[in-house]
């Protein structure tokens, strides 16, 4: 069982990667260490803080609670995949304009969670945004400006 490395093929932000992984390798470590996509952050490794949230086959998931081996054949979007050709996603723009981040460590997780939230609820109320983001911890902002950012982005994305 020591040599249980397996070849996997994973598409991240539209780019296909082939790597050998040990079964126990966490998806978060795989993204950061093996693919050098260090935008995804690790804050607790037990599925509470939400910093490592990525889109896994189009749905949000904690990458610290998945093994890379499970991503074989999957499509993943990380924070690096949100802006296209240098054009910030409206959510990124919203966070920028509304001071939705301070240290920026939790931000990738918030952006990805908000992405799905707006996909499911394009016109959310403030309360829905707060509930929708409650799986992500931020220690800097007190959340108000994050909520403002998402509401602002939602409005811009609707028009």
């Amino acid at each position, binding site marked *: 069982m020591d040599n249980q490395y397996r070849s996997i093929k994973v598409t991240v932000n539209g780019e296909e990667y082939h790597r050998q992984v*040990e079964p*126990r*390798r966490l998806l978060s470590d795989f993204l*950061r260490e093996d693919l050098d*996509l*260090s*935008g*995804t*952050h*690790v*804050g*607790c*490794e*037990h599925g*509470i*803080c939400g*910093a490592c949230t990525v889109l896994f086959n189009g749905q949000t998931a904690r990458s610290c609670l998945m093994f890379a081996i499970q991503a074989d054949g999957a499509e993943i979007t*990380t*924070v*690096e995949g*949100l*802006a296209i050709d240098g054009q*910030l996603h409206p959510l*990124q723009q919203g*966070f*920028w*304009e509304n*001071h939705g*981040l*301070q*240290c*920026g*460590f*939790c*931000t*990738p997780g918030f*952006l990805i969670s908000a992405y799905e939230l707006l996909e499911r609820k394009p016109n959310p109320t403030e309360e829905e*945004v*707060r*509930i929708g*983001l*409650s*799986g*992500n*911890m*931020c*220690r*800097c*902002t*007190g*959340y*108000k*400006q*994050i*909520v403002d950012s998402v509401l602002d982005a939602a409005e811009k994305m609707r028009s």
Partner: protein
Amino acid sequence: MVVAPPKTKTAKKEAQETSKYVGQSVKRREDPRLLTGRGTFVDDIKMPNMHHAAILRSPRPHARIISIDPSKALAHPGVTTVLTGAEVGDKSLPFPVGVVAPFKYYSAAVDKVRYVGEPVAVVVASDRYVAEDALDLIEVEYDPLPPVVKPEDALDPDAAILHEELGNNIGCHRELDYGDVDGAFAEADLILKERFVFPRYSSLPLETYAVISDHDATTGVVTVRSNFMGPFSMHAVTARALNIDENKLRFIVPSDIGGSFGIKSSIYPYIVLISLAAIKAGRPVKWIEDRQEHLLASSCQTDRVAYREVAVKNDGTLTGIKSKVIENVGAYLRAPEPACTFRPIGNFVGPYKVQNVRIDAYDVMTNKCPTGPNRGYGCQQIYFEQERMMDHIAEELDLDPIEVRRRNLIPAEEIPYTTPMGGIYDSGNYQKGMDLVVEMSQYEKLRQKQEEARKENRLFGIGIATGIDPSVSNMGYITVALPPEVRAKPGYLPKSGSAESATIQMNQRGKVSVSMNTTPQGQGHETVVSQIVADELGIRPEDVVVIDEFDTAKHGWFISSGTYASRFASVGTSAAVLAARKLKKKIIRLASALLLVSEDDLVIEGGTVVSKSDSEKSITVKRVAGTAHWNLELLPDDIEAGLQARAVFRFPSNVAPDSQDRVNSSNTYGFMAEICVVEVDRDSGEVKIIDWFSVHDAGTVINPMLMEGQIYGGALHGIGGALYEELSYDDEGQMLAGNFMQYVCPTSVEAPKLNIGHICSPSPLTPLGSKGAGESSTETAPAAVASAVADALRPLGININELPLNPKKVWTLIHEPQPENN
């Protein structure tokens, strides 16, 4: 509702009459990289042949280490080396600390463990997974000893002793006496006494500690990349422990730190530990603390028990305070502790005019994690005690709690004001701040609402708290921990002051770069500096590149450097202003030489240096810059080539403590007043924040949007500590909150909205009039919440003298009234 800060034009002093960007909510230049996943945090850095460390930690609170056998771990494939605590004892020196107590603190347990989570050994391996595998293979035999957990138990003569060489558990004890306390109590109409318990919590950054250490055996230089955030006085402490010269210990801090709130100042023992491991391993070693390690064994603020007695006149005037404080600094009194006790010494009385103060302060050691700076450092504890007493006074004298506070506020006309402890409040108008918060909250209406709620048997409470927010520590305050006779000894080096530097450069085509070394952790320093420099030089922020990465080998720095104690907005910005002005002066001087016009006659307008008396005489700044770089022939002999300037800002009023223990412990002093409205659910014990009004005076606000972020974040840290977060231990010294299910941080659903108001009393001490604001509501929020919950529970005859007010505690108070409430 957000009451906009007053237009900075009126608030600012002459130098900023032309300011365009200072005072504006300029978007942050840091954001694009952070929003696209391109920030540089320590864990994002890789080095050639870098190996990974994992730390074996004590499962016991107090035990002698009988034996430690790493042989199986060493034999494990992928393991490079194992460093044990005994080796740490051999290869390093105990950390220096500013108290007289003779105990030894190393970066790992040498022969005894003293808290759950204390490092016992370090494994270095090819990757972190393998390193953790090897931890399980190290065999340690312990001989358990009885634990000491609670602060007061540490003083019990029968308590176990953590450090035998000390003979007791007292790390520091000082009795401080200011004014005529006995006289005040003799003449008091009313004396009230109360016992308070303040819990351990941490403002807890989302990024954990991170260290990469690399030892160059040929030069002896140890290069450490870490998310250390200052004070760089700890660099000296680290070098001493590693027993190397300070210039051979290089600290590099990358541009991005994932929050700190003071907590990362206590990373340095791990810098020593990982450096020792790297030296032994002979290669760069990375250690990324995991969340469990962080909760168990990084840092947090003290838990403390305090007895406070106040002397009061019948009109509500507070005339004297006696305070006995027992701060639990954990297993080792770790520098900069016992600063928890002394950091707020100058502002101990808050905004109140009380003249007579006695503080009997103990810093005791117990079998808990060592403590250190945490946002608000020392202030939330004293304001909790102070404001609870204010409410008691109001109750006893049948006065409105607002009125009692008003009667004690220091009048605006007496500011600058020197407190009995030596703090010099530089500017402020506390009455005005109180008026604003009362007006914003429609206080009278709130009281009516409360009356209606009480008729419906609902537990509705209104809490009030005020505080003084001290910013920029005078490094000398910590020496109050030493008795005056020790400070008076001939060989003793007194300590004082606080300084920061900035370096600015204009390149050959007139563009500007600024280099700061302020170790920001999300405060937006790059943006703020660009605003300031743009105003000073009359250019656009976009034309200013700001780099803020610390490197002790490259920058001029000070032991006070770093970002802590809310210092950037006062001292960092001031250094940037001075550097820009120095550069501007040099441009004018050079232009004067080139144009043959006197310097007094020159101004810079729209990128051109022009003579006021003869507008024909002008030269573009770009040409001046080009000349300074390319054509040195034209430079007068007494002008340095190039266009660089480095400036240092320091406060004039920073002196070492006097023989009476008086010290101006900080430099600029802000003000905040809070009104908090809560409702308590009888069935669950849950406290719900219904409304919150928060007034701030931080002098000139440089970027209102960033200021709002600081207030919100700071308030939630205070609220977290008051209602949710506690690093709890059981009576046996086991840590109960080792994960995020047990250590409960508020999320977007729990976080309240704030109604923020501003008043502006510019500081006379800083060029822009700015003061720190980063810790403000952190310091007053716990007091405000406690005041509100006490007010809600008043009909039930319940007193609040302990935090956190989590559902379990509040429910128990409501349903199981205790005769004595510890």
